[in-house]
């Protein structure tokens, strides 16, 4: 019964994290970059939104501002990587660290800024889960439609090819560096948007929000794609799968909490989920690879270059 009572909250929070995971999907799956700046930008989104609401801004403006702050964070990571040649992982870590200071200064050197749900007409709040689910759902639908339209434009297709095959992309006249910046900007913008929703839902922005967000995002992606690729491996179905992954993740999360797991271990739980989803396909491959006879083909004998064996 307690589990059923917790379900609407799990769905609402799962939707928000699913939206965040869509942002991660763009960097991790489309651009093929593990962008760690999202841990910072989700918090930035929450901080911007909370502080603006506290200063009396309308809620829509605060949400848009949060999105734009995320876009800037993404551009920063993109430039560190593309313009200054810093490896993507490190560029993300640097931005994450920069954002910690930025977030503190946005919060006015406090560790927490509360949002008063009575003073603001919030889009969502934990006191009203049905409304939260509808609001988050509508925003997610809008985001998925916009992304679907964008990724089938001339520019959008080049973003896909940039992550899929940078050599081919350059040969076809695509500015791979610029595309990475654009992709990271969109990704972090969506993550910060999710951050602004999360802050509203929880009624506060905390400087420690978002720690480990990338792992939750990846968990949602792996859970979602494990199902959606079996249905139809296209873009929109993948995105819907990721949202579903976020919800499933939060249902598991709530379930485990109800079973009595100490909340101290929750982050570890997230990491274990991701590790399992990465390890299982790998171990499966290893196991089946051993059973196959060794076949020497012409092309494998001629191609000593490696890397192209997964034909």
């Amino acid at each position, binding site marked *: 019964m307690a589990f059923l009572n917790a379900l609407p909250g799990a769905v609402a929070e799962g939707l928000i994290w699913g939206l965040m995971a869509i942002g991660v999907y763009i960097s991790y799956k489309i651009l093929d970059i593990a962008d760690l700046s999202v841990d910072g930008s989700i918090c930035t989104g929450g901080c911007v939104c909370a502080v603006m609401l506290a200063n009396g801004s309308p809620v829509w403006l605060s949400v848009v501002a949060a999105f734009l702050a995320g876009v800037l964070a993404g551009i920063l990571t993109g430039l560190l990587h593309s313009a200054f040649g810093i490896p993507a992982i490190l560029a993300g870590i640097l931005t994450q660290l920069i954002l910690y200071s930025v977030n503190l200064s946005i919060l006015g050197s406090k560790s927490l800024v509360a949002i008063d749900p009575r003073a603001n007409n919030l889009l969502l709040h934990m006191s009203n889960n049905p409304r939260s689910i509808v609001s988050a759902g509508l925003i997610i639908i809008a985001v998925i439609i916009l992304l679907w339209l*964008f990724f*089938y*434009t*001339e*520019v*959008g*297709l*080049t973003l*896909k*090819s940039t992550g*899929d*095959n940078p*050599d*081919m*992309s*350059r*040969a*076809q*006249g*695509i*500015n*791979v560096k610029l595309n990475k910046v654009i992709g990271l900007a969109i990704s972090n913008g969506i993550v910060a948007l999710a951050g602004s929703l999360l802050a509203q839902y929880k009624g506060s922005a905390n400087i420690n929000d978002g720690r480990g967000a990338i792992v939750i995002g990846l968990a949602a992606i792996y859970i979602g794609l494990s199902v959606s690729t079996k249905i139809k491996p296209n873009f929109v179905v993948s995105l819907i799968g990721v949202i579903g992954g976020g919800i499933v993740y939060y249902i598991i999360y709530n379930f485990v909490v109800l079973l009595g797991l100490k909340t101290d271990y929750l982050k570890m739980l997230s990491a274990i989920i991701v590790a399992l989803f990465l390890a299982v396909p790998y171990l499966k491959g290893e196991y089946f690879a051993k059973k196959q006879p060794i076949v020497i083909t*012409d*092309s494998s004998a*001629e*191609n000593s*270059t490696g890397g*192209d064996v997964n*034909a």
Partner: protein
Amino acid sequence: MLKITNLQKTFNPGTVNAKTALSGLNLTLEDGDFVTVIGGNGAGKSTMLNAIAGVWKPDCGTIEIDGVDVTNMPEHKRAQFLGRVFQDPMKGTSPDMEIAENLSIAARRGTKRKLVWGIKKAEREQYKQLLATLELGLETRLSSKVGLLSGGQRQAVTLLMATLKRPKLLLLDEHTAALDPKTASKVLELTDKLVNENHLTTLMITHNMHDAIAHGNRLIMMHEGRIVVDVSGEEKKKLTISQLLGLFEKASGSEFTNDKVMLSK
């Protein structure tokens, strides 16, 4: 069409691994030249093609394509002049994207890409017809992911992509080396057809002496980062492999060594 003047490139300069790949390379191609390139191990063939494509900047020298100095132009900007097919069939196409999407990206090489629909309806029809000319049955698989195709099919699609928007210069870097002999000859046949139909200026590296002689109107042989043999016209038509090896030994003062070439002779 292409003018390379005194091109030099040393990799890892100042270290024990320093390797001079190009040492004062000069080459001029006329409009419509189909040049086959052959040479020993580490002669600088691929290095030359990469220099033209702009994969990195040369230490000195200039490269002009159709009168435009492209020496300092970044790779993606130079692409407007170039069609490229790589040795590795995996390198020329985007595996996780549909055949039609790959072609549509290639069709827009050198043009500003906008926020408009990525593939128009009429294009699909055009691609269908083009794919039908390959006779690989791809015309019914426009929406298939390229990653599902075989190496030969991918190389054929890459050739189409390289020529879909007519390039000023077509660069083929041993594009049949990774294919089985039957597929290789099919892809070469297609290459001849596309080059002739579109009257393309072409540089084709090959490790197969027969192919080097049988294709194109001009043959160059490279050694230690320079061109040491350059035959064209009637002389090239009559060329035999032993003559070619003789020419090479005379010009370079050393024996021809390329394991791949010797094995495929």
